[in-house]
């Protein structure tokens, strides 16, 4: 117990009497909030909510403007104590419930009132990093996202470093408030180790709901992001984006990757393609059309995507080995080389593209030797 604290009155039905809350000073109010969050005010049999923070947020809404101010002050004091003592306070509220209550209360208040809370949350997140989605750090970051706090990307980078893979989702949400490009980039950088497709799937409605999101720009970013997913995840995300009203352009390369050859043929204006046509047959039969499509596609795409498109093309060339038409091979190699020179590619792409180039060189050598052998 911390000194002489007063409690609010509770009526016969086990509901707190709001009027008596108005009479409490801030320390008493804070103490009572902590007791309720711990589920230890045994007089509150009228509580209907399944979580203490929900009960208190309902009570908060019934208070006068002045009493709400005291309530917020009390929450700030509890948060300061949590920040100072590291969430291991024996007589204090469970950090998770406190953070959820703070989110509820302060997300409904004016921006200027949130300033101090946001600073405390940032400090708390940085001081008590813990892996996993249940830690204080994770809850603080969720609170910051709920409060629409725009933190610099470096802040989110540090949080991700501390949280690891479990923090990708919340870091994506946090970064999306700053820069959608940065948000997608962090997922693409971690695509090898995590199911980043699912993270975007779940967060997309939230991202769209936030004001200022340009759907066309989002569609372009999603297009680029899709390429780092498995064909199955790509398909799921494309369908989901369609449901949410984000029209992704069908890219010949993603259609190729997802083995949707009929749609690919349709997109490229190729006729005579039937169900069951293999990738190899399609490429061999229509390489002229594909070839003419490739440069156009590259011109129309933004900086990140030519490499992606080219990489996909190189991979499919490698897949069919020495059956590749020589002209297409040369064009691909030239494009890849110019891309490597002209664009600042992200390191992952660059490496993969280089590997493909080396492999293409090998194929070229094979073809060259074969030609000589035939002449001989």
């Amino acid at each position: 117990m911390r000194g002489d604290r007063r409690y609010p009155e509770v009526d016969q039905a086990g509901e707190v009497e709001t009027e008596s809350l108005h009479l409490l000073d801030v320390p008493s109010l804070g103490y009572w909030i902590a007791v309720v969050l711990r589920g230890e005010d045994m007089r509150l049999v009228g509580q209907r909510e399944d979580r203490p923070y929900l009960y208190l947020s309902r009570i908060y809404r019934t208070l006068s403007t002045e009493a709400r101010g005291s309530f917020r002050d009390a929450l700030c004091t509890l948060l300061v104590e949590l920040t100072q003592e590291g969430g291991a306070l024996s007589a204090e509220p469970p950090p998770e419930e406190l953070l959820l209550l703070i989110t509820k209360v302060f997300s409904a208040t004016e921006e200027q009132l949130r300033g101090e809370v946001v600073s405390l949350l940032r400090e708390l997140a940085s001081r008590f990093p813990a892996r996993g989605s249940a830690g204080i750090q994770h809850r603080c970051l969720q609170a910051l996202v709920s409060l629409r706090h725009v933190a610099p990307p470096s802040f989110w980078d540090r949080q991700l470093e501390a949280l690891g893979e479990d923090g990708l989702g919340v870091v994506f949400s946090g970064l999306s408030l700053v820069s959608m490009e940065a948000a997608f980039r962090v997922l693409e950088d971690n695509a090898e180790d995590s199911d980043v497709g699912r993270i975007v799937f779940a967060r997309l409605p939230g991202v769209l709901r936030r004001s200022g999101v340009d759907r066309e720009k989002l569609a372009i970013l999603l297009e680029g992001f899709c390429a780092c997913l498995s064909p199955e995840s790509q398909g799921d995300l494309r369908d989901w984006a369609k449901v949410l009203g984000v029209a992704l352009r069908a890219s010949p390369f993603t259609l190729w990757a997802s083995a949707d050859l009929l749609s690919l043929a349709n997109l490229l204006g190729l006729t005579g393609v039937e169900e069951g046509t293999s990738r190899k047959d399609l490429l061999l039969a229509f390489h002229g059309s594909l070839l003419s499509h490739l440069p156009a596609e590259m011109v129309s795409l933004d900086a990140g995507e030519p490499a992606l498109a080219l990489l996909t093309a190189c991979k499919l060339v490698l897949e069919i080995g020495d059956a590749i038409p020589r002209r297409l091979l040369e064009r691909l190699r030239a494009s890849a080389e110019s891309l490597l020179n002209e664009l600042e590619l992200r390191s992952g792409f660059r490496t993969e593209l280089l590997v493909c180039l080396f492999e293409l060189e090998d194929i070229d050598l094979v073809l060259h030797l074969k030609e000589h052998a035939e002449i001989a």
Partner: protein
Amino acid sequence: MTRTLEAHAALLSEEKLLKLRARIRAVRSVSRAANEMCINMLAESRFERLDCGLLCRLLLTEKIDGVAETLLLVRRLARKKRRQLSGEPAVLPKERRCFRVITLEKMARLLCDAGIQDDEESARAFLEELLGQPASTLASGLADAPLGRHIIWSTFLLPNERAWPPPDAKAEEVLCALGIEGDGSPILLLSYFLPLSCVARLPTFWDAYSADPWNPFFRVAARGEPYGLTMQTSDECCGAARPEVVHEVIVGQYLDEPLRYLSAASGEMEK
């Protein structure tokens, strides 16, 4: 070996027995939920000897300050016991098609707790977008989402049933049949296949009273029953009581029907 509290109390001295009965009477008078808790406490036959001892001590001790504290301690004890479901395995048809209802708000909070969403508003938006989507999209979107918090209460399709709830069922009828008092919040119906690795069990006293707040509409199943039965919220409820089981929390990858709201009054399912 399990027993009833009454069988255990019979071994107490006359004085203690009288005190215990007086205490139970006092607890019963507090509220409907407290009254039902006492009825179930006396009806439960699955208590271990240690459980009975704890409950008796809790009811008899002088250290407890009032009935409200007794109720709080019962809940705390139940929460400790909840960690391992103790009811007998229920007999489920081989299809293992299960259903549960949950408010949109609660489901949104589950997603935030699991780190799948970051704020409740976005979580609600996500769930609303998922309404009516094919089961494959739903299972993909909620693949890692827990469908409950600590344990899951569920009803299931009986062998003679083809579907549940009936297409024309209203939300209040469904809730009544399940023994849930609605408060007008939008209610989601989750339909899923219970994986074979997850054992459905008869709900026990501990399962029911670990909740906060307590649901007054619950009755423990008698020993030997194949599954529990819900306690309807009203005698005028037009739907029959449903089979009732509890099981460990499973994730959304097992959802097998589109997510939908139970309709409030029109009798039609939304979206």
